[in-house]
């Protein structure tokens, strides 16, 4: 299995949509074949269309707010005493997380296809919140599927979705989290694909959704590359990019522009959710060696039992609480382009405490996982190593959990 150079990773899949011959694909009911093919044709055409790209860039700049900041975490760097720790503050983006990029592009595509309704899934509520914002902006009706457990633990985002006029549909099946929300959303699309567009909230799902999402979030690394050159004159000789990985949309977007660099120069580190320290459950299929299986239309490493039933996950962060992982990351893992590890709930909370103590930055629980590993590893790196952590979400949505776990003063 090999990663090709000078070809975008999203376009390295084969005819049937498999990366490396075995990750991704389209394991979907017959009913969805046609709408998926239509979307593929539309996306393949538009991603080469200058007008469309200009339109996208216009909305990214004026509405999403690009570029998001790239800042040095001076105090944290001093405290850790190793590499220079920087952050790409993607949570600056309109709505407070990277999910806005994918949501915007999906709404633009939906408009072009003439659909008037868009449906989407959400875990932490960001994908849903952003889709509701974008739908409102572009005059589309919006339906968001969200696990009942996630609705309880991510109330601020639920309120935001409703305020934007979206219908939030609670999903009570299975573990009542993201995995069930994605299933229910796909089922809804099966029944309504003639009138409704679907947005999959991460780089997961049938191949075209993986590609659209990766194409959209790549805005993050496009900005970062320019910012690195502005700051250092060129892309640093020792660059390490840390990102949390749930479905894998922010990390893929954070890395994409640096894909062709040698990994000795630009190393990618993906941090999965290890779950509670004392629990056997986790949401880290790459770190803990889960087997390949089919989930939500794509072949990927996924937590499952020997029969092929998808296993329940556990994580403090709703956004990472997913048993599978993007086919793109499976591909990056097996080609050894990226390295994957996990942080536990407790480690993420400790990192959150540390970052908020030293810096004016409040990463949500998802990027706190990435900070945890970045901080631990930075200690042993030289001072000319540039560590960048994608702070891809804001902790506002986690207030309830943080107050409960760490006390009021951390909120």
């Amino acid at each position, binding site marked *: 299995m090999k990663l090709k150079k000078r070809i975008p990773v999203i376009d390295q899949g084969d005819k049937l949509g498999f990366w490396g011959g075995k990750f991704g694909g*389209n*394991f*979907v009911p017959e009913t969805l074949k046609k709408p998926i093919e239509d979307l593929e044709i539309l996306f393949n055409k538009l991603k080469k269309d200058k007008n469309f790209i200009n339109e996208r860039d216009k909305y990214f700049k004026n509405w999403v707010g690009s570029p998001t900041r790239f800042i040095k975490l001076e105090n944290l760097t001093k405290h850790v005493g190793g590499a220079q720790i920087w952050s790409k503050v993607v949570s600056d983006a309109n709505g407070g997380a990277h999910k806005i990029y994918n949501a915007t592009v999906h709404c633009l595509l939906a408009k072009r296809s003439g659909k008037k309704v868009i449906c989407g899934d959400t875990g932490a509520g960001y994908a849903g919140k952003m889709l509701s914002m974008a739908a409102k902006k572009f005059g589309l009706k919006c339906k968001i599927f969200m696990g009942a457990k996630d609705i309880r633990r991510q109330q601020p985002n639920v309120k935001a979705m409703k305020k934007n006029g979206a219908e939030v549909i609670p999903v009570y099946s299975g573990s009542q989290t993201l995995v069930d929300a994605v299933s229910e959303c796909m089922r809804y699309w099966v029944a309504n694909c003639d009138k409704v567009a679907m947005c999959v909230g991460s780089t997961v799902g049938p191949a075209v959704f993986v590609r659209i999402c990766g194409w959209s979030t790549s805005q993050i690394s496009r900005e970062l590359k320019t910012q690195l050159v502005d700051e250092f004159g060129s892309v640093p000789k020792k660059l390490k990019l840390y990102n949390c990985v749930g479905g894998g949309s922010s990390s893929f977007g954070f890395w994409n522009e640096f894909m062709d660099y040698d990994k000795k120069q630009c190393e990618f580190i993906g941090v999965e959710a290890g779950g509670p320290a004392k629990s056997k459950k986790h949401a880290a299929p790459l770190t803990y060696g889960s087997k390949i299986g089919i989930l939500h239309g794509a072949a990927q490493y996924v937590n499952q039992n020997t*029969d092929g039933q998808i296993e329940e996950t556990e994580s403090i962060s709703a956004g990472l609480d997913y048993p599978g992982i993007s086919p793109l990351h499976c591909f990056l893992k097996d080609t050894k382009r990226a390295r994957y590890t996990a942080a536990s709930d407790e480690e993420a909370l400790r990192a959150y405490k540390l970052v908020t103590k030293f810096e004016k930055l409040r990463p949500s629980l998802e990027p706190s996982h990435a900070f945890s590993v970045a901080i631990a590893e930075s200690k042993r790196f030289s001072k000319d190593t540039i560590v960048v952590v994608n702070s891809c979400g804001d902790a506002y949505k986690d207030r309830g959990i943080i107050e409960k776990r760490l006390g009021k003063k951390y909120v």
Partner: protein
Amino acid sequence: MSNPISHAFKKAKSENRPALLTYTVAGDSTKKQSLEILKSISKKVDILEIGVPHNTPVADGSQIQTSSYRAIKNGIKINDIFKIVKDFKKFDKNKPVILMGYYNMIFQYGENEFLRKCKISGVNGLIVVDLPWPENKKFASKCKKRSIFFIQLLSPTTTKNRLKKIIKDSHEMIYFISMLSTTGGKLKVSPKEILSNYDKIKKINSRKNVVIGFGITEKTIKSLKKADGLVVGSAICGEITNSIKKRQNPVTNVYNVVNRLKKKLNELDNKNN
């Protein structure tokens, strides 16, 4: 040796009615009870579809989901399902049995091993909901080698060009999804429209046995009598759920539903005569 599925269609045709196919989930509500249900409805049904429950089903509505989750919760494993089929075949060896499920279960078991077990236990056909054409080409030909029908699915969204190609690659039986819906949805299009789509398929190849499924209940079954076969699934799964709620015997209640369905098909018969 011809597949008993073909024989079942011939028999129904000779009786001037569509074949009746039922769908029940293996292990719902228990392993033992699901076998009892199969045995009790066997003489009323032409082909038995047995669902392999999966916990992230992307094409099933609430009734079948409920049945699936219940079966999984009560401990059903794939090997138990093969055992159920085997035990059922001891009871009625000529009744065709089709397993219906999601690809991951087959993938984890290993395609070859799965088919070997199908053969030993007496499975006659397979429906894999999320393994569409052309992705299913290799697996379908493996099935054919073992004289197991791989049943292709067609939907109202299937383009004409695609219809032709799929039908060309299909075995003797084809499953037509009546409408854009998950299983168990209310019939939201007219029987006329469904049958016009059905005719398009039959026109391409009239020798294929085409069954219609999704949205078929006691109320709607009559209107689609023209089809080679009709599948009832969610209505039966829902009956099991209701029986459990009312603390009644699911085996008896499911038998009664199937009996009424069959009567409706036979009634047609008389009217036609």
